[in-house]
């Protein structure tokens, strides 16, 4: 820390930052555009001009750009200097030369950084009296709208899209005052993080296209802190709602996880909530037809079903801890199924065990960004955990940061650091069967079958620690590769091994764990990160339960009278024959879900459950972080949280049948969590993931609407002019209205949106942070159940290496090894009910090694029957392997299998 003088006031400031950060952290309102906390400084916009004085006797000073000037001891600056103020006002006036001033029809209006900064400089009126230039806008696909005339050319979009996220289809074109930011031609922005342009762009050039169809001003929306449900990473989001419909999802800063960036699946996947596939009322199957019935009829029907015999509950890795636990409380451990196949469950539980056992570090996404050597072992993280993939992409910048340190160039001096690091070798090694988006920044992208990758992994572990079992019969090439990678990892201060469940291979997981453990002997910071499939996979793994196979056995034995299935479409886990057998063997199936999945059509009773935006609950991410999401929408009567449905069912049962009889008495989420903590002590800290419903700030609930939300009585004046009591929830400390406390010091887990005096855009976030890009002012978001910041034990106990090294992969001539090709859009369940994401899902293709492509279309004989698929050659794909999109061809295809492959009967050459 050092002291600098800002406008005559001495401020204690961090060293190593720039003067813009220092001013913002000191609470000064200094306008800026091109600087972004995640992108660093480039000095393009010239908006943050201030006066710097060389000493106490310097009265003249000189204009400098705050973002390009490092903090140094005894710096004396003035933001208030008339010359600096005048220059900043001029910058706004220049930007406005070609800006259309179309705020009233602009979707950025009311949350526009350009508006905020304009007001901040006080510039008014504009004096430019000539013609403005106009640009042609582009169709950028289903996610992002384009209105180039609003552009102020801050270059943030291309710096984010190209430099940060690795995209190549958005660029700056032309020059002088005609610079154009767009694609070479109209077309969909392909990068997985394109939606962030909506938040990165300081004005309305890039706006949220799906949001546009149900557009509402920011100040008229209710906000709630939420957690993304579209993968297991656990990114933090803000959900915005109005008139009890979910309107959009925004990024919510979590210093450890997603920080400033969300993937497009997370940002645009929420469309399932308002999709036509949504279930709105209880449905009862009467005479083969599903008809809508009142809640009471539905529950009485359940009571009659329950009287017939034993109930088995099937939970889901996409349901909350509370919902899963309520089901457990209803049926007890003997009848509680995780809703996963045995293999899947074993893999998930193995991940949990390996993470628990890992002697090194379990890095957060943000910590992964500073890993100085990364090995990706058989997981396409860019598809399965996109935000994690983006963090790995950032890790390759470590070498350039070290170069910059050597050249005494601050790390935030973005362009300079990128120049210095231009030729730095990458430290990322990608070993996967198929190409990944990280290949282009990897030192080495090596293709092999999952078993061979696992063997390489074990060999690397043995190179690092001779106590790890050796791998015999490695080819000389592979042995050399193992040695090379082992040495890279050993030379690193913060090595990281990433693997996951994409190929359902315990050997891959074990190999990754062995390498990380071997590294941790000498390098306590050695990290391990394992990707899980769904948003609460880890939470469910920590609860445990029966597998679907066990339930099938019970059903075959006639031991199940009623199946209560919560938020789980079993057709994604079991082949059609098994689903049919289960449906036939069980007299009654009760589905509790929000979306009409294929399985819902087979149920005798369907109960409409609240989606993530309509209730509150807790999820445990793959790195074991328990995080709570909160309700933004108050749905109409029959829709309620999963655990409340289970409770309603319980109330229609004989209390003696309940495993935990307290179930019927739970009043709110806190009661559920308290009972969960008793039943599952390892999950007990999840109670503290966020403050309980009784939390008060300054004696008040927290408001979830903005202070200037339009009058709540006016909104429904066409129905009734009388004031209505606002809806409420016993589960949260939020009021549903604009009444209540709000401010930068509120707990990080409870921030429903960012707004501060003079700051209406998402960039108001800086007011909620203790340090720019650092921790929030009040606490972390979420709580990790397993945590190790590095092995503290100087002499760790020896790691028990497993010796289950698979045999070398051998391509077969009669069958192919079908690997699930997980797609960013298309493989994840819920986002595929969201119209914009559906529009982005590519048509299924069958990927084959080039020499196996004998015709344009081929027939793949999977467990559920033959599938005719267009064929696409995949460079580098090992012989005998076929890539089939996960869940898109055969619904249940999530793990590798062997299958026969034929030429299509028509033999067509074209695809």
């Amino acid at each position: 820390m050092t002291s600098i003088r800002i406008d005559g006031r001495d401020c204690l400031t961090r060293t190593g930052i720039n003067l813009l950060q220092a001013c913002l952290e000191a609470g000064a309102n200094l306008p800026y555009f091109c600087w972004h906390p995640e992108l660093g400084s480039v000095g393009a916009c010239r908006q943050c001009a201030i006066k710097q004085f060389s000493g106490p006797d310097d009265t003249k000073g000189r204009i400098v750009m705050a973002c390009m000037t490092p903090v140094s001891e005894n710096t004396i600056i003035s933001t208030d200097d008339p010359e600096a103020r005048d220059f900043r006002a001029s910058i706004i006036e220049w930007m406005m030369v070609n800006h259309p001033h179309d705020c009233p029809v602009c979707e950025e209006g009311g949350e526009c950084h350009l508006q905020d900064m304009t007001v901040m400089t006080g510039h008014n009126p504009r004096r430019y009296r000539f013609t403005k230039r106009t640009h042609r806008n582009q169709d950028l696909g289903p996610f992002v709208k384009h209105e180039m005339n609003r552009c102020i050319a801050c270059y943030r979009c291309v710096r984010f899209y190209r430099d940060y996220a690795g995209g190549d289809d958005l660029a700056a074109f032309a020059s002088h005052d005609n610079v154009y930011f767009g694609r070479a031609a109209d077309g969909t922005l392909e990068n997985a993080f394109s939606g962030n342009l909506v938040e990165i762009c300081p004005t309305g050039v890039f706006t949220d296209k799906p949001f546009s169809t149900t557009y509402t001003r920011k100040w008229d929306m209710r906000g709630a802190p939420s957690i993304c449900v579209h993968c297991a990473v656990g990114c933090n989001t803000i959900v915005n709602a109005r008139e009890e419909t979910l309107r959009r999802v925004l990024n919510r800063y979590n210093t450890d996880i997603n920080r400033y960036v969300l993937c497009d699946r997370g940002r645009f996947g929420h469309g399932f909530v308002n999709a036509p596939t949504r279930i709105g009322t209880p449905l009862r199957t009467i005479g083969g037809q599903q008809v809508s019935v009142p809640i009471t009829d539905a529950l009485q029907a359940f009571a009659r079903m329950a009287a017939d015999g034993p109930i088995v509950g099937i939970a889901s890795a996409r349901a909350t801890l509370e919902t899963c636990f309520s089901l457990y409380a209803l049926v007890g451990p003997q009848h509680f199924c995780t809703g996963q196949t045995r293999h899947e469950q074993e893999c998930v539980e193995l991940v949990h065990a390996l993470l628990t056992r890992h002697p090194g570090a379990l890095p957060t996404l943000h910590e992964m960004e500073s890993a100085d050597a990364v090995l990706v072992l058989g997981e396409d993280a860019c598809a399965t955990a996109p935000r994690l993939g983006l963090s790995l992409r950032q890790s390759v910048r470590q070498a350039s940061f070290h170069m910059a340190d050597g050249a005494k160039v601050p790390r935030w001096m973005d362009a300079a650091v990128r120049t210095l690091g231009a030729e730095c070798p990458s430290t990322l090694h990608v070993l996967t069967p198929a190409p990944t988006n990280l290949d282009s920044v990897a030192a080495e992208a090596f293709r092999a079958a999952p078993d061979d990758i696992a063997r390489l992994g074990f060999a690397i572990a043995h190179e690092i620690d001779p106590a790890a079992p050796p791998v015999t019969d490695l080819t000389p090439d592979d042995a050399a590769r193992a040695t090379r990678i082992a040495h890279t990892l050993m030379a690193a201060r913060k090595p990281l091994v990433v693997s996951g469940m994409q190929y359902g291979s315990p050997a891959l997981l074990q190999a990754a764990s062995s390498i990380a453990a071997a590294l941790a002997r000498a390098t306590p910071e050695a990290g391990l990160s394992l990707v899980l499939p769904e948003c609460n996979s880890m939470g469910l793994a920590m609860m445990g339960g029966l597998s679907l196979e066990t339930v099938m056995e019970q059903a075959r034995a006639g031991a199940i009278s009623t199946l209560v299935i919560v938020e789980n479409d079993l057709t994604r886990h079991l082949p059609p024959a098994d689903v049919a057998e289960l449906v036939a063997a069980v007299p009654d199936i009760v589905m509790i879900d929000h979306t009409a999945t294929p399985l819902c059509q087979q149920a005798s009773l369907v109960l409409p459950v609240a989606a993530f935006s309509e209730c509150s609950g807790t999820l445990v991410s793959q790195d074991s972080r328990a995080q709570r999401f909160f309700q933004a929408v108050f749905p109409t009567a029959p829709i309620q949280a999963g655990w409340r449905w289970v409770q309603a069912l319980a109330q229609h049962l004989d209390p003696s049948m309940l495993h935990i009889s307290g179930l019927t008495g739970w009043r709110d989420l806190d009661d559920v969590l308290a009972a969960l903590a008793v039943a599952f002590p390892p999950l007990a800290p999840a109670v503290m993931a966020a403050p309980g419903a009784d939390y008060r700030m300054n004696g008040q609930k927290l408001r979830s609407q903005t202070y200037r939300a339009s009058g709540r009585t006016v909104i429904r004046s066409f129905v009734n002019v009388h004031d209505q009591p606002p809806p409420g929830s016993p589960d949260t400390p939020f009021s549903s209205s604009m009444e209540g406390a709000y401010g930068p010091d509120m707990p990080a887990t409870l921030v429903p949106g960012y707004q501060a005096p003079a700051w209406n855009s998402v960039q108001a976030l800086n007011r909620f942070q203790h340090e720019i890009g650092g921790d929030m002012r009040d606490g972390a978001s979420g709580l990790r159940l397993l945590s190790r910041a590095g092995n503290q034990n100087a002499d760790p106990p020896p790691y028990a290496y497993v010796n289950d090294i698979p045999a070398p992969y051998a391509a077969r001539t009669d069958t192919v090894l079908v690997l699930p090709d997980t797609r960013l859009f298309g493989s994840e369940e819920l986002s595929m009910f969201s119209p914009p994401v559906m529009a982005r899902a590519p048509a299924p293709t069958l990927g084959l090694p080039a020499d196996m492509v004998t015709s344009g279309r081929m027939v793949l004989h999977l467990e559920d029957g033959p599938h005719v698929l267009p064929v696409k050659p995949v460079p580098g794909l090992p012989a005998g392997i076929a890539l089939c999109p996960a869940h898109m061809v055969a619904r249940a295809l999530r793990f590798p299998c062997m299958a026969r492959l034929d030429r299509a009967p028509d033999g067509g050459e074209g695809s």
Partner: protein
Amino acid sequence: MRGEYHLACARLHHAIGEARQQGWLGKNILGSGFSFDIHVHSSAGRYICGEETALLTALEGRRATPRSKPPFPQTGGLWGAPSVVNNVETLCNLPHIITNGPEWFADLGLGEDGGTKIYGVSGRVTRPGAWELPIGTPLRQIIEDHAGGMIPGYQLRALLPGGASTAFLDGTALDVAMDYGSVEKAGSRLGTGMAIILDDRTCPIGMIRNLEHFFAQESCGWCTPCRDGLPWVERLLDAIEDGTGQDEDMDQLGRHARMLGAPGRTFCAHAPGAMAPLASGLKLFAADFAAHIQQRRCPQQSGA
């Protein structure tokens, strides 16, 4: 080499070919074990590609925008590697300095600066052209002896001593020695040493408009003041020259000259350079500006 200079480029390639044939370029030059080669890169044809760091960025195949320093090119230049960026004019001095010694070179100058300089004169002079002369040669000598003086019927009114981005000097400054210190003392810059002459029958505002059109068009578009300020200046000058100027326009021109002219406010020296002829022109030709606005026309254009 700027993209449009096809003839110069062809000649350079020819010369390099000759040198290579003689064994003066390439691997193991004249059996010395020393290898050296020259590669001529034709740029995208943008003025900014001549800026030291934008030149490097352009060479890397990226948009020609200047870079911030540090790192300086000498430590982190082309693709992050140490790079020396020099004009060919500078490099041409090296063989002579090495052959004849630094003192000989320093003695070539007439004033404080050493060596020679390529001077040029354009405008309504009898023999426009470029000449290598001892640095510090007086301006009058260059114009009268080498450029042959003004074309009969034209009077010298003012001049830009060092090219488009230097401030105007009026006819009283003809005896200034063309070296760095002397020209600066006279209120302008030596710049490229290529003087542009304004005669008495050409409208100074038309000339400044022409210059500002060039600068506005050649702005790389990276920083706001330059990108959006220069076109504004151009349009103001357009309006004044076309007879639609307003009194407030003079305030706007003055404001731009002040805001863009000071160093450190724009990312590189392009906009300050663009403001040098404007700022000096506003003072030197104040009466012409006023006449344009009052008469709502260009007096010289309509008189011609």
